[in-house]
Every structure is written in C-alpha cells, then in structure tokens.
C-alpha cells in the first residue's frame, strides 16, 4: 500500500512536502520523547508490592528550571515553524503571489459540477471568443503559471487537486484566485473538498496536463464543442 504523499505535479508541491517532512521529523522526535518517556516511567516507577513495599514516591512540587526549559524549547520551535510556514504561505497564497503572466481559467462551481471557461485566442476572459463552460475538464499547459478565477453558484465548494497540493474554497458571492504551475504531464483528479450536498462525492473533474501545443489544439477543438 502506498504510504507517502501523492505524486508531486506542481511547482510548489516539493516545498509543501518538504514542510510536511520537516514537521514530521520534529513531531516524531517529540513523539518518541513523550511516549518513550511514558513507557520508561511506567516500568521503572511502577509500584512493586514485593520489594521495598510501602516505598514512598519522591516528594517534590516541581522544578522551575526544568519547566523553563520545556516551556522555552517548544516555544522556540513552534514560532520558528510558524515563520517558515509564513514564508511559504506568502509565496503560495499571498494576495500578490499570483504570477503576473499567469494564464487565467475561470472555474464556476455548482452542485455538482465544475464548469471551466478558457480564454480564446485573445487570452482574455469575459470576451466573446471564450471557450465557455467546459464541463469537468481542466486542461492546462505544462510549466505555465495558471490562475484559477474561482466562483461558486450556490454553496461553498473547494477546488482540491491532490497532485498539485492545491486547495482553495470557492465561495458564493466572492471572487477568489488561486494559482499553480503544473510540472508533470498526464491525468490528475480534481475533487470537491467542502461538503456541498448529497452529490458532493460525485463532484469530480479530470485534470489533463499537456504540452502547450497539444493544449492549444485541444482548446481549438473544444471551441468547436469537441471536448474529447
């Protein structure tokens, strides 16, 4: 059974997985300290009626020095983690993190479908040459920054592409942008990650990453209504 994270198919997937690994190592250490310590204490200090019966526990109300240590140490670690996360957070989701030359694709989420609108030759959304409302098909060119202009028709949905490590809610009444750069050719899956009704689990779209040329060809066909 696979036991690690899915394939990395976007530019920031390695960074996110890196963070994950780092936190796993830190928390893993803490885990072994705590659980190991507990198990050790359980055996070492358990009450033994036989030998030294009536032995009393060591009478102490604590040790301020020790407490300073195990207060300060975690504090430093988590604040450090916080700063690192914040760095990547601003890179990936910050208001001005979207690359300037990003290729816009409109995502219209409704119960229980994804409707993608691609800009026509003019590269602008909202013009008449748009390839409008392609159902459950997200095609993106390889290695090019894509910005999803997300909107929701009825309830809250969430764009989730595990391979891209991308997740962003689509909220009715709000216009939310999220971006990524696909770095791996092939088919991926897009799921809705926010409970949106009885068909939530069926709200699935296919993501196809292809070279620019193939993408353009596909878009031209899609403009004629030939999605396949």
């Amino acid at each position: 059974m696979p036991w690690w994270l899915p394939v990395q198919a976007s530019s920031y997937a390695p960074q996110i997985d890196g963070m994950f690994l780092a936190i796993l190592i830190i928390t893993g250490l803490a885990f072994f300290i705590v659980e190991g310590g507990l198990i050790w204490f359980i055996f070492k200090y358990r009450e033994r009626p036989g030998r030294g019966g009536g032995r009393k526990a060591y009478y102490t109300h604590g040790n301020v020095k020790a407490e300073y240590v195990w207060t300060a140490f975690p504090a430093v670690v988590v604040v450090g983690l916080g700063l690192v996360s914040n760095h990547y957070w601003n890179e990936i989701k910050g208001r001005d993190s979207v690359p300037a030359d990003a290729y816009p694709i409109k995502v219209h989420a409704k119960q229980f479908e994804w409707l993608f609108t691609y800009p026509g030759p003019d590269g602008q959304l909202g013009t008449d040459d748009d390839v409008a409302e392609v159902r459950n098909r997200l095609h993106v060119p390889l290695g090019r920054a894509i910005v999803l202009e997300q909107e929701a028709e009825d309830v809250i949905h969430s764009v989730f592409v595990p391979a891209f490590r991308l997740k962003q809610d689509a909220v009715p009444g709000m216009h939310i942008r999220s971006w990524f750069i696909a770095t791996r050719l092939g088919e991926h899956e897009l799921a809705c990650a926010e409970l949106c009704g009885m068909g939530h689990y069926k709200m699935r779209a296919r993501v196809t990453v292809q070279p620019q040329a193939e993408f353009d060809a596909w878009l031209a066909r899609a403009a004629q209504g030939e999605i396949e």
Partner: protein
Amino acid sequence: MTTAAAMPHVGHGEHAPMGFWRKYIFSTDHKIIGIQFLFLSLFFLLVGGLLAMQMRWQLAYPGQPMPGGSILPESMAPGGILLPEYYIQLVTMHGTFMVFFAIMPLLVGVYANFLIPLKIGAHDMAFPRINMASFWTAFLAGGVMLASLFVPEGASRAGWTVYAPLSARPDLSGVLLGQQLWSVSITLLGLSSILGSVNYITTVINNRAPGMTWFRLPLSVWALFITAILGILALPVLSGAAIMLLFDQTIGTHFFDPPAGGQALLWQHLFWFFGHPEVYILILPAMGMVSDILANGSRKPIFGYHSMVFAIVGIGFLGWIVWGHHMFMSGMNPTLGSSFMISTMVIAVPSAIKVFNWMGTMWRGNLRFHVPMMHAVAFVAMFAIGGLSGIFMAATPVDMFIHDTYFIVAHLHYVLFGGSLFALFGAITYWYPKMFGRVMHPGWGKIHFWLTFLFYNMTFFPMHNIGMAGHMRRIYDPTVYEFLQPYQWTNKFITVSAFCLFSVQLIFFINFWWSLWRGKQPEQNPWHDNGLEWSLPNPAPHGNWERVPSVYRGPYEFSSPEVEEDYLPQNRKLPKDPEPPVLTGAVS
C-alpha cells in the same frame, strides 16, 4: 440514599422528606443533576457511535446493503443501501451528538456539577434551581435533535459545522425541517450551558470552604472554572448565529444569503469564534481530571502546580484568537491567515507544558495502576499524538493539502476520543463510588481499557495515512476517485477496527450497569485521595456537609514526609496547621 431530612444543613435545601420526583427527577441536588447528565450523555454517546458504525460500513463497502440496514425506512436506506443524503445526515448527526450531547455534557454537565461543590466544600451550587433548569433545557435540546432524525427528509445535511449557505438553503440541501430543528436544539443547548456556567463560576468564586484559597483548588476545579468562563462567553455567540440561521430558513432574512448581499463567511467566523473555545471546552476539563487522577495514581504531588494553572488560563485566553485556523482555505484574507497561524502555533506551548508536567508527575513516582490511572496515562499518550498532529495543520502551507482530509479526522479523534473520552472513562470509574456507592469491577475495567486502547489506535491511526493520500472528509463513496482506490483496503481495515472498538464499549456499559447493583461496597476513601469529596460517605447526602470542612493545604500532598501514609487529605488538621479564618461572607 439518605433523604435531605436526615441531613439538615444550613442554607437552602428542602427539610421535608422528598418524594421520588423531587428527589431523582426534578432534583436540585447538584449530585443528582450530575448523574442525570451522565445518563443522558452516555445515551447520546451510544447513539453517536451507532451512527458512526453506519458511516464506516458505507466507506468500506460502498453501495452494498448494510446488514440489518433494511430496517431503515426508504428515505434513509432503501433495501439497506445507504443513500447519500442519509450518509450526510450520519456525518452531521455523529458530529453534533458527540460534540454537543456526549462529550460536552459528560465533561461539563456531569463533572462540573458533581465535582465543583464536593471539591471546594460547598453545600450545593449557588443556584440549585437554575442548575435543574440547565439540565432540563439540555434534555429538551437533546430530544429535539434526536427527533430531527425522524422527521420527513431527515436531519440536517450540512456537516456538524452546518456551513451556510448549504444549511440555509433547503432547495440546495434537500432538507428544511431537520435543519430548523438543528438550529432550535443548538439554541436551547446554548441556553442550558449558559445557565450551568453561571452556576459553576459563581459557586467557585463565592462558595469555597474556609482555607480553600485559589491556589489550593484541585486542577479539575481550575479547569472546570476556566471552561465555564469559555462556555459563558462562547455559547451565546453560537446561539446568536443559530438564531440568524433559523431566521434565514424561516422568515426569509438574508444574513448568509450572498445573492441578497449576505456573507457566506460570516457564518464560519461566528461558528468558529465559538467553535475554537469549544474545542478547549472539550479538552480542558479532561486535562484537569487527568491531573487529579495522575497525581493520585503516581502517589506524588502534581509537578509544577502553578504552571499547570497558568497553562489552563493561558489556553483559555489564547483559545479566543485562533479561530481563523479553521478557515485558512476559506478565501479569508491570507494576511489574516498568517496572524492566526502564529497564534495557533503559540497555543501549542501551554499544551506542551502540561504534557511535560504530567510526565514530571509520574517521574520517580510510585505508580499505582488502578483503572482510572491507566486511562489517565493513555490520555497523556494519546493527547500528545493529537497535539503533535495539530502542528501539521497549523502550518498553513501543509494545511493547504491536508485541510478537509482524513488527516483532520484522525487529529480531532485523537484529541476528542483519545483525549477527552479516555479521561472520561477514567473519571467515571474514579468517581463512580462517590456517585453510586459502589465500585466498578476492576478486572473488566482493565479488559475494557486494553481492548479500547488497541482498537482505538487501529481505527484512527490509519486515518493519518489515507489523509496523507488526500482522502476527503464527508465523501459517500471514495471509490469514485482513482487516486483513492489503492487505499480502499485501508478503509476496510479501519471499518473492521471501528466495529471492534464499538463492540468492546459494550463491556464498559455492561460493567457500568452491573456495578450499579452488584458492584462491591467501597471503603470511604477507596483511592486514598486528598480531595474534600472523600471526607463524605459514598454516596454523599443531599447538602453534602453538615458543617463545611476547613482546608489546610493543597490537594496533591501525596507521599508527604509529614505523615506515614502516602496521602494527606486537604481537610486533615496537623498540629502545625493554623485554623483558616472563617468569614461570614463577603465583606462589603
């Protein structure tokens, strides 16, 4: 039980012998009310578990008829095949019952009621009648919530967080009445918790026995006190939000209705502004009671009592400025996200302090592994895992991937089941003699503990794994997704473990009922504890004390060199102890 007549005491309380109804049903005795809450919430614990089992079946064997499922009506499971809309109701109701009607009343309703007066040396709560009202309001709320499962179209389908607009739009969720009942029930529950909290806070502040200074309070009382403060400030916000939701559904207001200018995120902000303090309402009392049990089981004073108190207070304070970490992916301003992330990281510190202090308490102790102690140690172990996995989702970039996946599910169950529920099993066993004058069977208690511990980890640990694969929460059929198909056997494994976990809980329930009548009579202080409650007969009479005891020291004087026993009750006067000043009340 001795009647109140046999136990006259100062202050309020009935002096005539009371009939069955006044004594056990509409009682104003904090102990009876606590026991009423206990039965109520254990019932909902069972219901919530049953719902979870149905979910697990569907996840492991999607679309296959559930054994015995054919007894369910057409609208839920035609031919035993669970419908998606019913599955979402299961998700919603499992969360709602467990959070609002099982864990919360078990921790606060039961133990704040039962322990606070006994541990601080009060005759009863400050407002016994309000206390009774609090229980019956909760009872009503529970009834309404349970009824919502059986009305046409069934219960709410929006998850336990009932995110608007899905919850506010019957045409989109497919359910109206059930969702309205949800709002009504939650509003009632909020009222009940407010009435309770007023009592707890007033009692702790004003009605402590002479000598029971703030820093001689047991940590359980400290935790319950802070919890009550959280409750009294958080629940009204939830009630307000629930009322707005109810109005949106009923009289056509537009609070959460984007087309008419409402805000979808407003609900999330209101809900989580309540919801995060709620998370600590669900864990702080467990921490407090575990501290008591752990010190007792280690026969050693709690390690760093003061920092434990400050940690509780710190958590109680920080709990108010971290709610946004539930909304990192909601489209909220990312800059806001950063600040919430930092505060969330900081709140890990007090939790770490507590874990290390618990270990410090066990260090060089004389560990006595009675059943409550086992559960207490398991609490520390499991809470540590839950706390550590929390750091993953606190780190916003990682949360971007694991948000709304089973990683979250694993995390919250490690905190709520591995944490709160283990602590509760311990607490129930520990104070059972005080409640019912009997001891729960220790042998079966240990069997129940080990089996629960085993199957619990087999159930929830693999959820981290499928969460890392990106397995979304609240989906009816994971096999729809190619990337989840390799994990289907993990789902099956989890399901089988979950069934085992559920069935071994029956051991606990049987033990509980059996001991009510057959359990052996305890000595007055069965655990050799220092708390004031053990200076009373088991069970304690209405009004607790004829004369309130005086307190000479803190609650954790185990293995003190001053006496040869390894425990020293708070109210035992040693020659050197000065008599605490007896005040005739607060001086104006």
